[in-house]
């Protein structure tokens, strides 16, 4: 990652590690919620899906096209939005560094914890996150709402290799 001072203002501010970490935290929360549904065995967000999820959520155009409920399957959505598939795959590459940095940042402050190849969202920051969102902009709130949704949605779509294959992303 280029040093903080060398990035463009947009990169620095709009994709700053604190913000991305909060987005990943929501992804992991959504994933955990959905994994509880069938077997009541909470599972953490697989590492590679943090990148895929960020790509689905942080690109405004893609975010606007996401389905309204998790019952629309990922395969069906990809089938209906053939153009988004390549955008998501490219987003994974573009966002690789900010997301990796966000994982480090979140983990340093104990907001994300890593267990094997899975991420979990700890609860100790949830109050602060809530109060941050209350005073934040509509777009930020929308990002987080969608991040939670995408976490659930990706969990429903099956094992990580299947999700990556559906979106044409190489692990």
């Amino acid at each position, binding site marked *: 990652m280029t040093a903080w001072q060398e990035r463009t203002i947009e990169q620095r501010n709009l994709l700053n590690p604190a913000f991305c970490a909060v987005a990943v935290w929501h992804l992991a929360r959504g994933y955990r919620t959905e994994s509880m549904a069938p077997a009541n065995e909470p599972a953490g967000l697989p590492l590679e899906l943090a990148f895929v999820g960020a790509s689905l959520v942080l690109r405004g155009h893609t975010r606007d096209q996401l389905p309204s409920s998790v019952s629309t399957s990922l*395969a069906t959505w990809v089938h209906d939005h053939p153009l988004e598939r390549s955008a998501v795959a490219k987003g994974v590459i573009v966002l690789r560094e900010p997301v990796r940095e966000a994982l480090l940042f979140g983990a*340093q402050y104990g*907001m994300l914890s890593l267990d094997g190849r899975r991420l979990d969202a700890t609860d100790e920051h949830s109050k602060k996150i809530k*109060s941050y969102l209350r005073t934040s902009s509509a777009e930020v709130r929308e990002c987080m709402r969608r991040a939670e949704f995408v976490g659930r949605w990706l969990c429903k779509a099956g094992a990580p290799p299947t999700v990556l294959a559906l979106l044409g992303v190489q692990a």
Partner: protein
Amino acid sequence: MIQIRAIVTYSHDGRHRFVPFEPGRVNIISGDSRTGKSAILGIIEYCFGAPEIDVPEGKVRRNVAWFGLLLQTHRGQAFVARQLPKGDGKSNEVVYIQTDTEVAIPPASALRQTTNREGLRSLLASWVGLSDYLHEPPAGHTRAPLAATISHALTFCLQSQNEIAQRRHLFHGASDRFVAQAIKDTLPYFLGAVTDDYVAQQQELKRVRTEIRQIERRLAEAASIRGDGIGRSDTLLAEAKAVGLTTLGDGATWQEKIDTLRAIQSKPVPSAAEEAGEDAEFKRLSIVRSELVLEQRALQSTLERARGFEGSSKGYSAEAREHAARLNAVTVFEHDTPGHSCPLCLQNLPEVSQVPSIGDLRAAQDYIGERSGAMDSATPRIATAIQEVESRLADVRRRLEDNRALLTAVKRTNERLQLATDTEARRAMVLGRISLYVENIPQMPDVSEQQERLAVLRKQETTLDEAVSADTIQAKMESCLSNVNRHLSDYAQRIDLEYSDAPLRLDPRNLTIVADTPERPVPMREIGSGENHVGYHIVAHLALHTWFANRDRPVPAFLLLDQLSQAHFSPDTVPGEGRTQEKIDADRKAVKRLFSLIFDVVASLDGKFQVIITDHPDFSDDVRFQKALRERWRDGLKLVPDDWPPGP
């Protein structure tokens, strides 16, 4: 490419049983009747996303919760499972999919909905390599355009026990009129007579034709503008000469005339008053007037610039607000101290860590805060400035009014000036009409360039039209079919079918096989004996799959044959009742010939083609047969074990 590695059934109480198959080989399941052999076809169809389940009522339908298939695709393996319909339903949208380079058959507890029937079908289509093929029915037909789907491709891979000996219908499901029509419509695509970019070419042709029409319209317009344009421009020039605005001769070309008109239009109007003589007051007022007009123009442009800036600065502050909102995420982490070792790999972090610190984020936040503050305060000032300019503008306009009143008064007292103003008014009028005319002439397009483009497009149209025309497809279709027919005749001779000495062909219009005897063409339905029908079904499908496999066509690379020996004998046949031992031996030989042909064809295709056979006989003396035998369903072994409970 899709081949089947296993068929899996899951019970309602969490058990599962799978039947393994080898890709690229012949796979035989030999078994007694009522062991679930014929259900396999229904399972495959259902797992390939059929709209309704087609498994006969009984244990397979009632004691199984999910059907699954482990598939081999060109990219690895895929496991698809589909839940059986609840109660007496016909369909169920619950589908589970898992893909990887290698997939283990999941336990029943792992099955849940990950997609629906539509998602399943589009995935299967992508694995098999279907492109978007749309069959547009010929003009005059009322049926809707038809897109090739995985269901159409699967038609060529299945033969149920009632179909394999049918004399009227060659293909799976073809007894239904609509299915038969769909097979006819998609056959050119599956054979490869229609290329994969057929649809793209059709679209391109449409686009080219639209562009040709546009250019033709433009050229026609240009011609018509010239036609009556000359008349209009001549009259305008005449008027301009009359009021002394130009001295162009009559022999000028149309382009020159237009240029002159443009020049007149863009020149400032010479003041007629100057020619009319000296008049100090009038001149002074005129000068004041032109100064005022200048000032008015300057003020107006200032106003526009300021308004534009105000709009954009509003946009910028909104942007900055978004920056600030996202940076505010840092508040979540404040008052926490970061760990000194990397949380992901537990190594101690170097002193100057690459991860930006809270301080960095805070600094960025303050910077944005300052700037957006500065901008916010600038906005009202701009608003005041704009108001100021507006009031000055109003003032200038008022002074212009006064000036005009004075001028009119001066003019009235001066006849000569009156005359001059008349000329001026007339000039102004002619000028106005010239302006209107010149502005309305579309920039005369450079016709030669347009014509060149038109020629290129017409060439393109011809080639595209040829590529997608029915004749071309027909010719390609014939060439594909002649290759298929060669295999057809060859295979038929190998198993010594009746009429195999005559040339055999697949008739794509009637979806049947025709033997061209010297007397007349004989279609399959007129050829007698069930053995012949089975033979024709098998050689037709083998010939088609040989072609599909060699050409890498988007058809699943397997063929399921259900009970191909039915027309010959059943394993418990004993002599008697008009069945002599010779007849039984002859039947045995015939069936072995069929099997042997299938083995040879699969071997010759070298892994690109898989055959699954479910049948009664078990040739214990045949090495190849025994090697291909995956399971014997006898003595209680069945597709669905007897101890599985029925579902709720």
